[in-house]
């Protein structure tokens, strides 16, 4: 998994690529630290280039949501398609994440 943060005056977009699975937990945690440092007001996870997400990846999304609630910024997801979109729908995460 790779990511790139585009911060536009507190409105950030994180563009992901690759798969988001357990093995990416270190990278994901780094991402959370990066977002915390940038002091964003809102953040959109752009998943249009993500091919696969497992339950650990979804768990990490929920941790991000937890962090957002604690720090007071808004998290949402966009661009999910195929397997990723189905997974978000199955788990109703798209509702939880204001998709």
């Amino acid at each position, binding site marked *: 998994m790779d990511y790139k943060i585009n911060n536009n005056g507190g409105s950030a977009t994180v563009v992901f690529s690759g798969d988001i699975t357990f093995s990416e937990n*270190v990278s994901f945690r780094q991402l959370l630290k990066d977002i915390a440092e940038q002091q964003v007001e809102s953040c959109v996870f752009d998943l249009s280039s993500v091919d696969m997400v497992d339950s650990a990846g979804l*768990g990490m999304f*929920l941790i991000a949501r937890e962090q957002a609630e604690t720090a007071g910024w808004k998290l949402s997801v966009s661009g999910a398609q195929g397997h990723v979109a189905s997974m978000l729908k199955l788990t109703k995460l798209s509702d939880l994440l204001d998709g």
Partner: protein
Amino acid sequence: MSSINSLETQPVPEGVSASISEGRSLEASLKKWLELRHILGRSYSTLGGEIDLVAALVATSTDELSELFHNLVGNAQSQSQSMEQIIHSASRITLDSEELTLQEVVGFLEEVFSEGIMNVLELAQTAMSLVYALDDVVIDVNEVVKNIKEIEQINKQTNLLALNAKIEATRAGEAGKGFGVVADEVRQLSKDINNMSTTLRTRVDAVHKGIENGHEKLQSIASLDMSSNLQAKDRIEGMMHALISQNEDFTRRLEHSTELSRQLQNDMSSVIQKFQFQDRAQQQLDSIKITMGVLNDITEDLAVETITENSIEDVENTSENMQGWVDTVIKKCTLGEVRQRFVQGVLLSTDGSNKIVEISNASDDDDEIEMFDAALGDISQPSASLDDEDDDDNIELF
């Protein structure tokens, strides 16, 4: 008015023979009229009996048909009720005395499945939180390892210092003897610290391994490929909706069938009402009988008047004329049993001893009648034509 019979007993003057001839012709005609009157009277009586038979047949058949249709209506009602029960039962299941619709069952299953999915998700979140917590612990443990290394380094230097102090104490001789003892104690203390440090390192390594082990366990908990769940959910949803759709189709067809059954009940009820025609038919038949009775009375009165005014005797026996008329009538009658009763009623009723008709009751065919009497010779000829005209004709005349 002069009597016709007087013409036969008195001498006939010349020139009036023509009048006598006319008188005889008139008498023959009157006799013929009286014969016809007898046939008509007996026919009225026989046909009245036929009307009674028809009325009884209609009444019996109507009652039987009415009862059958009542049974049909009852069965159709039972059928409607059964189908309504099927419609009610088909879309519901009973579980522990609680009645649930299929939609509720499907909703419940979807809810249970969603709860399961949410639990998996919650588990994954918790596992990942633990992973991150353990990562933090690993960082702290690494710090501890680093500290142990520093302690070991300090201890190494302490040990070297104690060794140097011991050497210096030995050189000082007796004066350094006490210092030497202190140096030995310090070295012993350094050894103890080194042992403790080794133990601490071993334990920290164990903690590190335990964390790594926990990390792996958490990975196996958190990392579920939920594709199979996704497929299962889609399949369960598909099956449930197909089940509901099939059930709705089933219910629609049953409702249509129930409606048809209700229409059938209405139609049959209308049919039963139509059976009231039997009352009207009975009234009409009674009216016909009354009319026939009136006609019979008129002809009877006219016949009495004829006999009285012309001083002639009434007809006693069955004549050829009468047989001929009966023959003409039965030629037109196609029903064997009716013909049999007509012949019996009209010809036998005049003279019981005059065996002009013999009925073969022992015949295989109930309607078959065989007539043997020679007196009916002139009406025996049409028998072949009767048989030719209608297959139902079962009367043979000889």
